[in-house]
């Protein structure tokens, strides 16, 4: 990246320190900030050569100054406190700005450099949430603080685990396996008949855009409250996206490649197993990744329409009713981790299976 924004970086650096100092000497904040902005602006135009080396320490100094101000303040006392809060925010922004300037080298250092900005952003956001909610005394029935949610995650592990098994292992996984498996098998049939392909693909594409989740009350009526109805909703949700992707994948081979197989006098099965299925894999995995997200959504939302007294969707809807929001957030945190882990699993497997595909090359 050649577009270095030195003046902006310096502005942030100056602002961080000013906010920190302003927080310490609360009372003069406004005057100081005004002064600081002028100084920062002048400084920016003066030394815009290499602000990285002293910008980073300044940012850290600002954050430390601000945090120092906050220690010992159980109750916020007016403007100084909020200056400290803004100081930490701007300081974090500055750090991210500086970190983002480096082009990540290969290896562990590069990975750390790549992961640092989102982690800093996430941590700052959590910290801001914690601080603002505590300071403004927002009741926990409206928004609990992260530490409460964390405590709930630890203390209610058994409940969360029961819900996870009910919703994910029983509902999502079984539905995902049945739905995607059936779609892949059906795609092989569709692929053999051009008529079916021309007729079913547009219909499948159309159905994939509809709110299939609305079938949940019907399946709850047919299969009862327990997990089979959730698995059925998941099957209905994943079937068509998976079908469309697999059928598309099976057409991904070129006529030349198929002709080559023909000259080897390979039969339909041999061509399928050695050429067309491997060639379809990028599409299949794309479908699996889309379906991984859809499946969890389907299983959770289906529980809103009726479920036994366990399951993530059940817990969310009943604990919301009891205003136990820390439990709801804990459940959401588990769902978020689970969702990205399930997606990540397929993404990793994809990298292993389709290592030959251009999209998997590291740039």
């Amino acid at each position, binding site marked *: 990246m050649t577009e270095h924004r030195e003046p902006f970086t310096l502005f942030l650096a100056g602002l961080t320190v000013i906010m920190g100092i302003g927080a310490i000497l609360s009372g003069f904040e406004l005057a100081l900030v005004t002064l600081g902005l002028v100084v920062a602006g002048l400084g920016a135009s003066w030394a815009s050569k290499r602000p990285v080396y002293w910008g980073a320490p300044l940012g850290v100094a600002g954050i430390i100054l601000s945090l120092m101000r906050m220690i010992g303040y159980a109750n916020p006392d007016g403007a100084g406190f909020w200056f400290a809060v803004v100081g930490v925010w701007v300081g974090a922004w500055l750090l*991210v700005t500086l970190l983002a300037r480096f082009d990540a080298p290969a290896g562990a250092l590069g990975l750390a450099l790549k992961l640092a900005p*989102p982690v800093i952003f*996430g941590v700052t956001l959590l910290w801001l949430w914690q601080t603002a909610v505590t300071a403004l005394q927002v009741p926990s029935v409206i928004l609990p603080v992260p530490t409460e949610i964390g405590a709930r995650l630890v203390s209610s592990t058994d409940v969360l685990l029961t819900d996870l098994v009910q919703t994910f292992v029983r509902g999502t996984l079984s539905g995902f396996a049945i739905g995607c498996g059936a779609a892949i098998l059906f795609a092989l049939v569709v692929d053999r008949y051009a008529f*079916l392909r021309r*007729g079913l693909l547009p*219909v499948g594409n159309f159905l994939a855009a509809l709110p299939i989740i609305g079938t949940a*009350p*019907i399946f709850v009526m047919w299969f009862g409250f327990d997990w089979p109805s959730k698995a059925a909703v998941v099957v209905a949700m994943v079937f068509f996206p998976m079908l469309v992707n697999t059928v598309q994948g099976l057409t991904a081979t070129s006529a030349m490649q198929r002709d080559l197989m023909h000259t080897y006098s390979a039969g339909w099965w041999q061509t399928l197993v050695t050429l067309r299925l491997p060639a379809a894999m990028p599409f299949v995995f794309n479908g699996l990744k889309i379906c991984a997200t859809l499946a969890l959504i389907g299983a959770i939302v289906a529980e809103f329409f009726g479920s036994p007294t366990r399951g993530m969707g059940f817990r969310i809807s009943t604990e919301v009713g009891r205003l136990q929001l820390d439990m709801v957030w804990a459940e959401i945190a588990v769902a978020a981790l689970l969702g990205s882990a399930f997606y990540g699993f397929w993404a990793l497997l994809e990298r292993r299976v389709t290592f030959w595909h251009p999209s998997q090359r590291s740039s």
Partner: protein
Amino acid sequence: MKNAFPILTVVAVLLALWYIAVVPMNATWERDQAAMRGEEISFGQILTATMNQDRPVLPAPHQVLIGMYQQTLGCEAVGRRVCRATTPLNLENFLTRLNETRTSVRSLIYHGWVTLSATMLGFVIGTGAGILLAIGIVYNRAMDASVMPWAIVSQTIPIIALAPMIIVVLNSVGVSGMVPKAIIAAYLSFFPVVVGMVKGLRAPDAMQMDLMKTYSAGGGAVFAKLRLPTSMPYLFASLKVGIAAALVGTIVGELPVQQGGLGVRLLSGSYYGQTVQIWAALFAAAILAAGLVGIVAMIERRTLKRMGMAT
């Protein structure tokens, strides 16, 4: 439309399968009824009876159609009195019924509008915010490094799980009606738009950027004349995903606090075992989704055609 014949065939086969499935799904109830009366029931009787049950396990397609008519312009929606007064359904009576069905709580038009308005409001907010954030991400490296990974991760997690909480919490602080549902619709359509739009705004290649530079074009001109036009196909692709997601979000958002909407029709249908009502609401939601995605697709076709980008 060379695919029209295959598509129609597939749809016809699906309908036929549906009709065939109706018989075994609903037969148990008919047999139980006959056994209770101590009668024998023939297959022919089962065949006709299963097609017209009051609360079928699986309603036949024509029952769903009739149900949809009943819940839009039929007597169920407008009430028996209005229904009788407007019975030969000429144009004038049709308009009277249409006016009546707009406000009836048993009408799919009314509930569909509740859902549609919240969806549209949320979609507009979510899309606008998404485009703004995408511009920020493309032009600010710090935002790209810190926010973009979270936007991508958000695509893989079931953020719809937040919906009941947002509804109930906002309701408890006095915000109810359309706004909470629109917020859910907004954040569900927000992330796809961010991710798609970032991709689109970055789509111009180095050659094109260099050309703009040789014209000594400023940042604003590069944005307005190169980046924004290039991003249009990406934007429309994410708009189609976003509006479908917004509709799902609104429907799910209608479940916890029941103040009208297709989600309420689905849930109350499942409480009272009104299967025809569930299916009618489901089809109404499907029509709504298809219509919304279709409108976006139409705008897409026109825009891209006028920009000379249509394939």
